[in-house]
């Protein structure tokens, strides 16, 4: 494998107190997009700022394309790293117009040429007519895209995005996200996106690194972290999940939903993770539940269920055109293999 785009090894940052990042390792392949996903305060932004060169870690190395940028307290200055950094608020320079912001990091001679600006605006999906606007005359989504264009203008090999979409409303967020992804792909930049939004991480990245309390709990493909979480916590953080006690023997497990297939063999007391979309509702059968309430969401619906004769509460995601009514009796099947975790 060629040199990794970004290689972080043993990174520890403490700000003089308990570690915010604790022995963190991360490899991002050249040209790849990795999402660092975690609850707020888990250390995601600190990791990003360390890669950008704004933070001096206590220990650890950061390499980009084989070049050592950070080695313990020894740093290459941020401006010498060739790393683009886009903050949540965009941090556009208020005294410069859009063109002035985009060409800010270019050599003086290139700054004069307006020709630089137009392709970059188009790259991030903005009209070239915005070039003379001031930052305060732009919407939040436009500001974000200008900030991205500004970072891309220097053709960095690495782009760091710190929750760049979180301040945008839903419609704008999807559009800005698509424009950003397309622009990054066009440039082939190695990208690290920090976010606390699971859907964003899963849809944007080809690798998702889940961070809890300054450590990575799992680093895998989006399907991997969602479908095969390393711990129950990761499973729950990435989406709705029911954790049921069960007894595993080889590739099957018995629990309150009957005998289910396991994706990985296991033995003994386990926690079975079932996602709401894995429950298939049908005619009453061996496993029957009564519908206690329904939340209709258009394309699909969340159905809350109570197993007959038991107190276990379940949630099923069903297609929007096949929604049962509260009080209905339905049978539950789990046709796809499920994951299990050893009971602790």
């Amino acid at each position, binding site marked *: 494998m060629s040199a990794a785009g970004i290689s972080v090894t043993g990174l520890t940052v403490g700000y003089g107190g308990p570690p915010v990042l604790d022995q963190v390792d991360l490899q991002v392949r050249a040209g790849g997009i990795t999402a660092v996903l975690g609850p707020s305060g888990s250390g995601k932004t600190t990791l990003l700022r360390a890669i*950008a060169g704004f933070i001096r870690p206590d220990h650890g190395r950061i390499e980009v394309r084989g070049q050592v940028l950070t080695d313990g307290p020894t740093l*290459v*200055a941020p401006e*010498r790293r060739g790393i*683009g*950094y886009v*903050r949540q608020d965009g*941090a556009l320079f*208020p005294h410069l117009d859009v063109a002035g912001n985009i060409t*800010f990091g270019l050599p003086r001679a290139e700054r004069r040429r307006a020709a630089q600006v137009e392709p970059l605006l188009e790259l991030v999906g903005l009209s070239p007519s915005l070039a003379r606007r001031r930052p305060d005359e732009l919407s939040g989504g436009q500001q974000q895209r200008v900030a991205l264009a500004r970072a891309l203008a220097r053709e960095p090999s690495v782009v760091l995005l710190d929750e760049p979409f979180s301040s945008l409303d839903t419609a704008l967020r999807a559009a800005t996200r698509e424009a950003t992804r397309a622009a990054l792909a066009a440039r082939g930049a190695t990208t690290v996106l920090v976010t606390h939004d699971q859907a964003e991480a899963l849809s944007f990245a080809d690798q998702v690194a889940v961070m809890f309390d300054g450590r990575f709990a799992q680093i895998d493909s989006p399907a991997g972290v969602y479908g095969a979480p390393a711990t129950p916590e990761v499973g729950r953080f990435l989406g709705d999940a029911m954790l049921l006690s069960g007894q595993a023997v080889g590739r099957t497990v018995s629990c309150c939903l009957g005998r289910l297939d396991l994706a990985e063999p296991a033995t003994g007391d386990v926690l079975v993770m079932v996602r709401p979309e894995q429950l298939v509702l049908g005619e009453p059968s061996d496993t029957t539940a009564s519908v206690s309430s329904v939340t209709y969401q258009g394309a699909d619906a969340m159905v809350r269920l109570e197993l007959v004769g038991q107190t276990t509460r379940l949630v099923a995601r069903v297609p929007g055109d096949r929604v049962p009514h509260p009080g209905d009796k339905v049978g539950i099947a789990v046709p796809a293999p499920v994951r299990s975790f050893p009971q602790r």
Partner: protein
Amino acid sequence: MPASSDLRESPAAAYDEPVTPRPVARARRSTRMPWIVVAAAVLVAAVMVLPVLVVVGQASASGDEASRLLLRPRTAELLGNTMLLVLLTVPITLLLGCGAAWLVERTTLPGAGAWRTLLLAPLAIPAFVSSYAWTSVLPAVQGLGGAVFITALAYYPFVFLPAAALLRALDQGHLDAARSLGSSGLGAVLRVAMPQLRPAITGGALLVALHLLAEFGVLQMMRFPTFTTAILQQFAVGFSNAAGSLLAAVLVVLCVGLLALEVPLRGRARIARMGAGARQRPVAYRLGAWTIPASAALVALVGVALVVPLVLVLRWLVLAMTSGAVVVGPLLAAAGSTVGLAVLAGLAASVAALPAAWLLYRYPSRLATALERVTYVASALPGVVIGLALVTLAVQWARPVYQTAALAVLAYTVLFMPRAMVAWRSGLAAAPPELLEASRSLGLSGLGTLIRVVLPLVLPSALTGFVLVFLATSTELTATLLLAPTGTETLATAFWSASDELDYVASAPYAAAMIALSAPLTILLRRQILDQR
């Protein structure tokens, strides 16, 4: 490791060179302050409090003499006059300032933009110039009544300015919420709007009161003696250290008392806006049939505070020009030395304020806050106190600087530095650390960031601070009378010596020149209202 500010680093090592440990931009809070900046800020703070210490020291050294001097009936008269003036004038300025601000910012009164300018404009006319204008036609304007009349008209903009800015910024959403929670219209104003306005109103009232304690020109013309006029008279009849310093010490006590009084009055209201929603523009109160009386009231106010003094000064100026009484030489000389002193004071105050402002910006800490606050204490004191203290200091310890421009510039710096401090702080706030980081990540060095990001963002505010100090200096009278270099007349002192002899014609050119010089102040201050969002 070298403790240097990260904006002044040497260029970093290139990738292939061996990298050496070096400081980089870090999060806003840092404990390692650059010692040279701290030392500069401490030095400035020490110079700022020195005059206060001198006055207090002088007064306490006079011992038995002190009680004899202080317990004279004369002292009681001065104290009574001073308090009477404050107690009568402050409520009037509150009424005028808040009333006008409400009419302009929250009602359907036509011409709000023009009123904003016109109601601030009296600040461009020094109070002693408008008292000269009024007495030149109405000799009856004198004594306590005249003093209250002139000072209220001259100082109500100190209340109008913050009240208008806050009323403009008041979130209609808060008032609507109060109404929906069952408050009446008046109740919403009293329970929601007033607590938010209180800091501005008490701040404005404090400013008026401090100016009244410091006022000399108006009260001298009105023949209404207060502590300030008495101190200057002592100084004029033969400099008596003990008596002058004692009166000054009483003045210091009154100032400190006012400052202390303001703290509980200001209240603990914190005006924080929750949520990210856009602020609701205020709904204007419909004046209806009251439009005409309300407009008439503002016309009357602007008439007596601005138009009458302006017209009278112009009339005397025309008279002076037609009678050939305008002596160009001395006028130009006075204008030149005024501008020279004011430029020096503007520069000195800007430079002196920078270390503490920079510390607060990059290394916010209790020490930095304390170093900033100290500068406000000294400048709350009347010019006469600062002037007297510097005279005492120079006569005893630094004879060569006595009656030089340096000492006068020092006095102006002590008096007016907060204007530069506030300007630096708002300017630096426009360049938050995020922008510095963005610049670094876009490939600029520390120096490049300073030149291309920090300076363009900070300079406009810094320039405003310079201009405010310049304008304040160019019409300063009391400290200038005490400290002006020998043989130098400023516009203010030249005006003063002419008007002291009731020579209205000879005074007019100087008065007109001061008004012309101060006019830009109105525009600068008007922006402070409009910038409130």
